[in-house]
C-alpha cells in the first residue's frame, strides 16, 4: 500500500515535469486551427510537419541552429583546454599557506558574477577587438563563464586519482604533461565527459549575452532567434514551438547519455565542497 502511494506520488511529479514539454511538442505538430482549440487536444489531433518546414526553410532557424552548435562546441573545447590544467594544478601541487584554497575559491566565485554586471564592458571590449556579432567573440565570453565550473568539477575528479599513479609513470621517464595526458586523463574520462556535457548545455541555453552581443542573423543563436519571434506583434506559435523542440532535443540527448556521470560529477564536487 505504502509502496503504491510512493509510486503514485512519483508519477504525479513526473507528469508535472513532462506535461508542459509535451504540450509544446503537440503545438509544434498541430495545424493552426487546432492549436488553441477548446477543449484542449492532448492526443488524436491531425499531425503536420509544416511548422518545422516553415521554421527551417523560410525563417532563419537553420542558421541559428548551426551557430548554436558551433558556439557550444568551440566554447566547451576552450573551457576544457584552459580549465583542465588548472584543476590538475590545484589538485596536485602543494601551495604555500593554503593558497590553493584561495585560488580555488576565487575561481569559483567569478561564476557568481551576475552576467548583467559584465555585459556592457564585454560589449565594448569585443567591439574594440572587432569580435562583436561574431561566433568567436561569443565563444570567448562563454569560455569565461564555463571555466570556473570546469575547474571546480575536474578538481574533484583529479583528487580521486591517487598521486602514486603518475609518480610511477614519471619515474619511468614520462614527463608530467605526458603523465597527465596518457595516464591520468583516461582515468577521469567519465568526469571529463560530464564536465563537457555541462558546458555544452550551458552554452547552448545561454540567452542574455547572445542577445546583446549579436546584431545580425550570421551570429544569432537559437534562444535569441526564438525570443525574437515571441515578442512580435503577431506570434507564430507553430514555428516558434517547432524551433523550441529542435532547440531542446540535442540537450536532452546529450544529458541523458551522460546522466550517470553528471550525478557523480556533481556529487563529488558537492562532497568536496
Amino acid at each position, binding site marked *: 500500500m505504502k509502496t503504491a502511494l510512493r509510486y503514485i506520488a512519483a508519477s504525479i*511529479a513526473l507528469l508535472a515535469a513532462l506535461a508542459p514539454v509535451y504540450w509544446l511538442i503537440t503545438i509544434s505538430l498541430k495545424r493552426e486551427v487546432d492549436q488553441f482549440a477548446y477543449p484542449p487536444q492532448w492526443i488524436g489531433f491531425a499531425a503536420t510537419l509544416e511548422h518545422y518546414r516553415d521554421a527551417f526553410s523560410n525563417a532563419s532557424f537553420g542558421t541559428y541552429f548551426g551557430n548554436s552548435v558551433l558556439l557550444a562546441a568551440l566554447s566547451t573545447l576552450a573551457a576544457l583546454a584552459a580549465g583542465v590544467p588548472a584543476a590538475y594544478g590545484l589538485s596536485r601541487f602543494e601551495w604555500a599557506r593554503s593558497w590553493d584554497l584561495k585560488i580555488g575559491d576565487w575561481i569559483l*566565485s567569478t561564476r557568481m558574477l*551576475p552576467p548583467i554586471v559584465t555585459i556592457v*564592458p*564585454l560589449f565594448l571590449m569585443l567591439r574594440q577587438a572587432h569580435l562583436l556579432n561574431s561566433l568567436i567573440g561569443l565563444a570567448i565570453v562563454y569560455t569565461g563563464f564555463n571555466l570556473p565550473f570546469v575547474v571546480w568539477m575536474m578538481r574533484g575528479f583529479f583528487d580521486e586519482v591517487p598521486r602514486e599513479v603518475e609518480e610511477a609513470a614519471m619515474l619511468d621517464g614520462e614527463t608530467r604533461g605526458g603523465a597527465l595526458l596518457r595516464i591520468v586523463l583516461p582515468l577521469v574520462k567519465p568526469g571529463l565527459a560530464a564536465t563537457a556535457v555541462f558546458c555544452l548545455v550551458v552554452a547552448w541555453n545561454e540567452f542574455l549575452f547572445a542577445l546583446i552581443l549579436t546584431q545580425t542573423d550570421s551570429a544569432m543563436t537559437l534562444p535569441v532567434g526564438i525570443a525574437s519571434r515571441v515578442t512580435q506583434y503577431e506570434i507564430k506559435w507553430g514555428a516558434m514551438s517547432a524551433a523550441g523542440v529542435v532547440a531542446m532535443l540535442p540537450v536532452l540527448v546529450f544529458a541523458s547519455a551522460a546522466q550517470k556521470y553528471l550525478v557523480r560529477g556533481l556529487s563529488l564536487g558537492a562532497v568536496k565542497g
Partner: protein
Amino acid sequence: MNTRVTSEKPRHSWRRLPQGFWWTLPSIVVLIALSIYPMIYSVRLAFGDLGNFTRLISDRTFGIATVQTIVLTAVALAAEFVLGLALALLVDSLSRAKSIFRAGLLVPMLLPPVVAAVAWRLIYNPQFGVLNGTLRQLGVNTSALTWTNGHNSALLSVIVVDIWEWTPFLFLLLSAGLQAIPPDPIEAARIDGAGPWRLFRDVTLPLLKPTILLALLLRAMDLVRIFDQIFILTQGGPGTATETVSLYIYRTAFRFSNFGYAAAMSFVLLAATMLFSRGLMRVMRAR
C-alpha cells in the same frame, strides 16, 4: 598544451616547487580578462557619477524591483528546496524504475530557459492557454484567472515557472548527496530503534547538510539574477508586477541608454550576491 612543465625533471622534490601556479595561469588570465576587468570597469562606471547612488535611494522602481527579486528568490528557493528534497527521498526509496523517474524529472532544468518560457506562455495565455482550457473543462469560471497578465497573479505565475524548471536541479544535487551517504550510520541508528522521522532528522539531514548548502548557494545565485524567463513571459509587466533587478538594469542600460546608472545598480546586485555567498561559504566551511 602547457609548455612550462614538459621540461621538468621528475624528482621527489617536485612537491616543493611552486609549479601549481603555472598550471592555473591560463585560467587566471582568462578570468581576469573576462570577469575581473569587466567588473572593475563596471564599478568605475558606477562611481564616475556619485549621483547614481543618491538616485538609487529615491528610485521607486528600483525599490520595487529589489523587493520583488528578494520575494521571488525566497519563495522559489524555499519551494524548490522542499520539493527537491521530498522528491530525492521519494525516488531514492523506490525499488524499481528509479532511473526512469530520475531521467524524466531532470528534463525541465535541461531545456533552454527561453524554450521553457515559451512553453509556459502557451500554457498561461488567459484566452487560449491550455491551463484555463483545462480548468474550464472542469467547470471552473476562468474569466478572472489572467495568470501572467494579472497585476496580482503575475509574480506568483513567474515563480511557479521557476519552481517547475529548477526543482529538478535541487533534486539532482540532493539525490547525489543521498547516494554519497555511507549506509553504516543509518544502520546503526536503525538498530538503536530510531523511527523514520528521527532517522531523517538526526542522521540523514546532518550528513546531507554540505550538499544542501551548496545546492541552495548555487540556486540562490541564479535566482537573484533571473532574467531569461521573465524577459519572455512578461518583460517585467504588467506595470511593474514582475520587474526584477536584472530586468531593470537591462532596461536602464539598453532602452534608456543610461550605462552609469545601470552599472550602479549592478554594483549593488554584485555586492549583495557576494555578501550572501561569502556568508553561505563560511557556513559551509564551518560544518
